[in-house]
């Protein structure tokens, strides 16, 4: 509770100072997104060297928006070098019809027409220090250029980060802003993805979490994780589950667990927790996570969990003792 309270305070603080609406978000406590160069080994923690995120802009937003990328290049202190930095990563923004609604766009693998929609901007970043620990800004983007998706409550853009060369790991963050030079949140905006490539913190006391959204059609979910190594535990928390353990994947390997969904969990976010190994210190661990429903469809991870952070709510029952 204390942890959550401090987290909420931290969120409020970020909102107040403009450092908000990021991917990863403060709730997730994930330091960076990660994308490796195309020549990397998947055993380093990236199964496909491609990270696809969507961001939603509410229809009420009519002024231009900006997507800012923190440390988009692959060089400097933050990124993971494998020898000398030699990696190029392309960031591309898409909007328009099909950018989300094309079935390949929601696929967890970068195959088929995953680059669907209209390309609104693209930039390849290498090892040049220009953007070390600073921002590159895409935009201005006209909100109307996004794909209107009523069931998601706004216009959808897509940003694909794809390693095009090299073998280093690029660590970065996204920010959604109404200002090209500052992080001013877009009211009602949110990021989501169907497959999360993330860097775990090195601090063994930290706990990270991501929030797949479970709709009312879901009766079971399958949580998959890739290349977890031996970095602690993965647990699922929801309104009705208080830390169900997931199996953890080994090196360069996928593992998955299936869990039933009860009525109380429908139309809520669930929490997948990453709890660092307290006894063995694992550094620079990159992991990939995705969640599918009983039909094999991927569930979206919203960086700002829909309905709020789920807190386990016990269902108290009493039965007669004879």
């Amino acid at each position, binding site marked *: 509770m204390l942890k959550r309270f401090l987290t909420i305070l931290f969120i409020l603080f970020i909102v107040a100072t403009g450092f908000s609406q990021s991917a990863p978000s403060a709730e997730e406590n994930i330091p960076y997104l990660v994308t490796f160069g195309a020549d990397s080994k998947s055993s380093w923690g990236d199964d496909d060297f491609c990270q696809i995120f969507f961001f939603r802009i509410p229809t009420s937003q009519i002024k231009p928006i900006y997507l800012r990328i923190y440390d988009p290049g692959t060089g400097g202190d933050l990124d993971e070098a494998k020898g000398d930095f030699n990696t190029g990563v392309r960031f591309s923004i898409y909007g328009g019809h099909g950018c989300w609604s094309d079935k390949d766009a929601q696929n967890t693998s970068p195959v088929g027409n995953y680059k669907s929609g209209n390309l609104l901007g693209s930039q390849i970043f290498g090892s040049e220090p220009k953007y070390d620990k600073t921002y590159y800004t895409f935009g201005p983007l006209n909100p109307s250029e996004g794909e209107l998706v009523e069931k998601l409550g706004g216009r959808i853009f897509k940003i694909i980060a794809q390693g095009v060369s090299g073998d280093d790991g690029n660590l970065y963050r996204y920010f959604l802003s109404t200002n090209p030079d500052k992080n001013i949140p877009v009211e009602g905006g949110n990021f989501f993805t169907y497959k999360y490539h993330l860097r775990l913190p090195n601090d063994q006391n930290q706990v990270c979490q991501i929030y797949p959204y479970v709709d009312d059609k879901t009766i079971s979910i399958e949580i998959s994780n890739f290349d977890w190594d031996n970095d602690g535990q993965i647990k699922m928390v929801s309104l009705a589950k*208080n830390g*169900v353990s997931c199996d953890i994947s080994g090196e360069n390997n996928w593992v998955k667990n299936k869990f039933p969904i009860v009525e109380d969990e429908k139309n809520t976010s669930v929490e997948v927790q990453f709890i660092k190994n307290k006894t063995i210190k694992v550094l620079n661990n990159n992991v990939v996570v995705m969640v599918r429903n009983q039909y094999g469809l991927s569930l979206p991870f919203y960086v700002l969990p829909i309905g709020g952070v789920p807190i386990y709510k016990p*269902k108290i*029952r009493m039965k007669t003792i004879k």
Partner: protein
Amino acid sequence: MEDLSFIRKAGSILFVLLMLGDISISAQTKSFDVTLAPFSSSIYDEFSPVFYKNEIVFCSNRRNNSVVNYQSDQKNLFNIFYVVQKDSNSWSGIKLFANELTTNLNDGPVSFDETGNTIYFCRNNNISHHLNNNADASNKLGIYSAEFVNGKWTNIKPFTFDDPLFSFVTPAITPDGKRLYFASDVPGGFGGTDLYYSDLHNGSWTKPVNMGPAINTSKNESFPFATKSGKLFFASDGHEGLGGKDLYYSLEVNGKWINPIHLDSDINSPADDFGLVTDDNFRNGFFSSNRRKTDDIYRFTAGLVQFPVCDTLVKTNYCYLFYDEFQKANDSIPVIYEWDFGNGIKKYGSEVPYCFPGPGNYEVTLNIIDSLHDSVQSSTIYKFDLEEISKAYIKSPDLGVINEVIAFDGLKADPPDVKITDYMWNFGDGFITRGPVAKKTFDKKGIFTVQLGLIGDKDSIGNDTKICFCKEIKIYNDFLELAMNNSKEVSKPGKSVAKSPAINESNTLAIKMYLMNNLSELQKSKIDINLYKTIEGTIVTHEKGIDKASYPVLDKFIKVLNENPDLKLEVAVHTNDKGKSGNNLDLSEKWAQDVNSYFIKNGIPAAKIHCKGFGESRPIEENDIMANSRNKRIEFILLSNNN
């Protein structure tokens, strides 16, 4: 002139129409054998019999030799008569009860206290009227009393609250002579005639009290009769019945009159049934009825009622297991489940049992505590109503001691969909005792089965519904024996007070503390917090009593008793077998008395504390060098005051 017919009119017309119904009802299995009293005539009216010595005294409008009286409808007025039972089958001739209580207007009904020296009776207020004033309705009936002195009824005086404007009729004095029940139509009641009572305090009658809506209706209640055990029989045409006036009884339980119980259909009929008198067990008696057109007196004898099946009661409790339905074995967040029952009691665990004291609205809070961060992860409140469990139930202690009156309450026996018309108790001698409550004294140790038989409304084919259930009660020789067999020792060895030359093992009593099994969870919790966890020291004795070094221990008990009015304490003091037996008993009694005095001196009511010395009579193990100090002990037994 007023007579009693004004309170007996209802039901007369229905009588003829329903005679066939009467016959069919009387043909059913009988709880009572009802026969016409031989001294009842088909010509005259006889009603309201009462026991008096070896006589039956009653009212009748038969002719007598001393007065000539008749009403305007050419029927005679009522006077008081009596008969004497010569043997089981024959009665003496009917005689006027007493000339000095006979007027030329209406006399009776009557009632006697158990001494037989005081009579309460009804008569017209103005007895000097001439016959041509018989139709004078303003001459109301009032209640009078007289004393039997030197073979004559003297000192005739009106009841203090008689009012010439209203009727005061059918007096019934309790056997102890301290309460007078009667019927009256004074304004302020519920309608018709209501039942009232007045108590005798310091020789004066208190202001009459209306018996309230449980007894009185908008119609007529009258003809009360009170037994020694507290049952009040009466007649009413306002409660649900078979028609006309029917007979009912009620009794006061916890200060309230229970809803009247309609007497068996062997006694009640569609005609007017009224004026019942019975022995204390409601086994034998007489009542009045106009089921033969004229008022007659009937004799009843309780039949031997059988209940073919008697189910063993499952004790009613309100114990539940609380758990979290979502909590799974594979939930692995390290948390502590804290269940807060809102009364200071907290229990820990994913599943906890808890017993509530009874029905009510409750709230339980489940705090899930993150044990890694020692913070509350979530707090969930669960509110619920516990409703009274509807099942057959005998309310009584499960345990008792010999020669102690034990009360049994069947009012909670509430089988669904059955209207109970009679309660019958079997304490091993058949279903003899009637009524929703009963008292019993057991004179020997053992396990006894008490049965309660319920007779309900007749079913569709006219048979009584019969339900029977039973419970066991364990009787012990004395309370200490009871306590030792039904309690749990919770005492821990008392820490010794600071040693001084005057205090050593030979003059201390080992402390043993017991909690009776039937203490509630809340009581146990309070004792645990305030006594068990804090008690230190020991009881130091000397030849004259308890040393003041013992007071800190006793003070702990005093504090707990003061803070928990629902607890009481039994203290037993024992010695070892050193010394003379008589001396040991004296010593233990002296120490017990000293403890008792200390408690009372410090404000503990005497009813909450009982201390007794047993000398060497009850060793916990064979006396030897090792056991001497263990046998020499003081036992504190905490029990619920509500037992």
